[in-house]
């Protein structure tokens, strides 16, 4: 494992950085929020990202993808994360897309992956339930035998991009285990209600009321898709961490710019040692995150058996470091940091939302301990 960008990755990073600087300023996020945009992102920009090849990065070439890994995707997500770009990488590519790529039949892959990679199909994974917290197995949604297939009932919350997804991957209890079912949003019995979140990301309540599905709707085996779900969420977690890395880096840059320009008591406030030392601690946190995210992505790409521990390391670190960078940012901006007019608040909200997605730091430390046998 080499913790350094390859030439190809450097090139992707450069393209992504230029694209983000030019096409995806933070003001876009503010405008989408203020307009009450139900989609929550730009469909045309998504299409452009697909044309650049980014949406298909982790999918096999035979299914319209680039056949690259998380290490490459992470480079793009970090760049997008800098300006909190809300495009649906997490829901469509990292969650539902990876579920299909890892657990789907040949037909399912051929039906969905080329359309996902082309930026034409939007999907999501409905793993979160009102009482499940971070436990992927704590499900109340059930799939019960009905004719040749199943009938699916339950309620899912905070399903990312639920309003625009044309299909949802739904974990449900079946035969004492977990099944993953691919549910068309149009299917009778599916209803979606938009939710409003602190970070402004599009999400919805999904109610499933006796939704009838054929056996061919399953990803993986009946009642045995728990490991598949965990593998998918591990991948998505690394993707989220890459986004968080970009966002915390940018939040810290903004804070440093402020420290170098704001004057009080006749001096630039960045000259005060109390603030310097705190800034140094934010810097240390960000640098350690970068190493952990790079290692986690590379070890998943290499199918290393210890990858899960590195994923938890990355998520635990990023959860704390991003929130730390954002909290210190608001504090160091002072009063204006509390105003909606300034951008630092967007980072604080995103930091909290990202922290509480796929397990917070304490949850991942507990997972690390379990994986290490203590």
């Amino acid at each position: 494992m080499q913790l350094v960008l390859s030439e190809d990755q450097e090139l992707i990073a450069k393209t992504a950085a230029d694209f983000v600087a030019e096409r995806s300023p933070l003001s876009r996020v503010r405008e989408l929020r203020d307009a009450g945009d139900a989609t929550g992102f730009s469909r045309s920009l998504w299409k452009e990202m697909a044309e650049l090849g980014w949406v298909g990065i982790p999918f096999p070439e035979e299914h319209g993808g680039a056949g690259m890994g998380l290490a490459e995707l992470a480079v793009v997500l970090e760049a997008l994360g800098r300006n909190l770009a809300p495009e649906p990488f997490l829901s469509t590519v990292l969650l539902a897309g990876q579920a299909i790529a890892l657990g789907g039949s040949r037909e399912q892959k051929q039906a969905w992956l080329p359309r996902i990679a082309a930026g034409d199909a939007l999907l999501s994974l409905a793993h979160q339930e009102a009482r499940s917290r971070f436990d992927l197995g704590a499900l109340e949604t059930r799939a019960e035998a009905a004719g040749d297939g199943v009938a699916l009932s339950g309620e899912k919350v905070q399903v990312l991009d639920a309003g625009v997804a044309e299909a949802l991957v739904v974990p449900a209890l079946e035969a004492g285990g977990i099944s993953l079912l691919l549910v068309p949003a149009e299917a009778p019995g599916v209803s979606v209600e938009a939710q409003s979140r602190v970070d402004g990301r599009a999400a919805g309540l999904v109610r499933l009321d006796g939704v009838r599905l054929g056996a061919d709707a399953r990803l993986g085996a009946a009642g045995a898709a728990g490991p598949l779900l965990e593998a998918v969420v591990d991948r998505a977690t690394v993707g989220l961490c890459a986004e968080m890395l970009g966002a915390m880096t940018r939040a810290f840059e903004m804070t440093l710019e402020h420290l170098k320009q704001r004057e009080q008591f006749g001096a630039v406030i960045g000259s005060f040692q109390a603030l310097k030392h705190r800034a140094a601690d934010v810097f240390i946190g960000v640098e350690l995150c970068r190493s952990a995210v790079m290692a986690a992505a590379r070890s998943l790409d290499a199918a290393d058996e210890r990858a899960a521990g590195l994923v938890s390391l990355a998520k635990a670190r990023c959860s704390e470091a991003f929130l730390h960078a954002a909290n210190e940012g608001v504090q160091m901006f002072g009063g204006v940091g509390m105003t909606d007019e300034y951008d630092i608040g967007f980072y604080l909200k995103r930091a909290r939302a990202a922290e509480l997605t796929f397990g917070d730091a304490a949850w991942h430390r507990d997972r690390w301990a379990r994986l290490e046998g203590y």
Partner: protein
Amino acid sequence: MSTSATPEALETFRRETGEWLDANAPESLRGRGDDPLNGVWGGRRWEFRLPDEKLWLERMAEKGWTAPQWPREYGGGGLSGAEEKVLRQELKARRMPAPLIGFGLTMIGPTLLQFGNEEQKREHLPRVCRGEIRWCQGYSEPGAGSDLASLQTRAEDDGDHFVVTGTKVWTSYADQSDWIFALVRTRHEGARQEGITFLLIDMASPGVSVSPIRLISGSSPFCETHFDAVRVPKRNVVNGVNGGWTVAKALLGHERSMIADAFGASSGGSGRRKTLPQLAREYLPGSDGRIGDAVLRDEIARNEMDTRALMLTVQRSRDAARAGHQPGPESSLFKVYATELNQRRYDLLVRLMGPQGLGWEGPGFAESELRTTREWLRSRGNTIEGGTSEVQRNIIAKRVLGLPD
């Protein structure tokens, strides 16, 4: 010996090195390579614990392999970086200790190679390589700690000699060393940094005296070294009179990375010490093999994960260097983070032991418990020595983050 070794040449070197080691490495020393600090420090006062240690040192010094990468004319082995790596791998494969350790090899040697004149290199380096002279460092003073440039040990001009008077503190192993490299004041006016000279002093000179320092953790290698009108020939000035600060800075940077490396290596678990989770299971047995106390389990996991994150960051820095990139900003965090992490680790260890962590000496406490408690106290110095954490954060703020003075 080729410097741009082809893979084939390197394999030949590996084979020949292996053969030589098989013929010359004393069997009795195998397995003594596990604790790097328990090695042979050399010097006039050194007493070999085993006759084979002397033999091993002589044989390796003959090959130049006590300082494998130094030029041959100064007693080194003239090896390339790749060849030295092969040598280390072959030594490790045979569990052989380094024949010689100490500040001569790690500090004054590299400094003289960079800043010394030909005469100094010829006089001192071969004696370091053969383990004949043990060196110590004289930087800090009672009145000059973090603010090293305020040092007051004075060297007065007396023709072809300087006359040195003053006190140095934290001179590790000074009581067992033969020579000291010291910073002394040769000018009292102007910028403080520009009045400092780097001087090599024979500790057998009249007027040098040494007294050991007792720490909160008990006896220690640290000493106070006093100079009372000690006459030092001017040819022992390195990098010119008043040119010492440049040398000192280069050496300090080297020392900090050494400290961070040492912590990185030790926290990786050399196999000699038990890990935090192992100790936790002993002191806090829980059901189903998990650590019984959920709060301590969380702290242990945090410490283990932080250690891993630091090691990955050290690796990232090395990988970037190998790929030909400039050193990244991440290397500036190693010292501060590694030392604070080590302190958190010892804090946790003592709390894990509970009342058994209160032993100072004597009955009722395991040897490992007594040692851990002393090490906890000693670890408090980690964030002071080699540049305090506060100074390190100032450096990060200024050099990496660009915050103004």
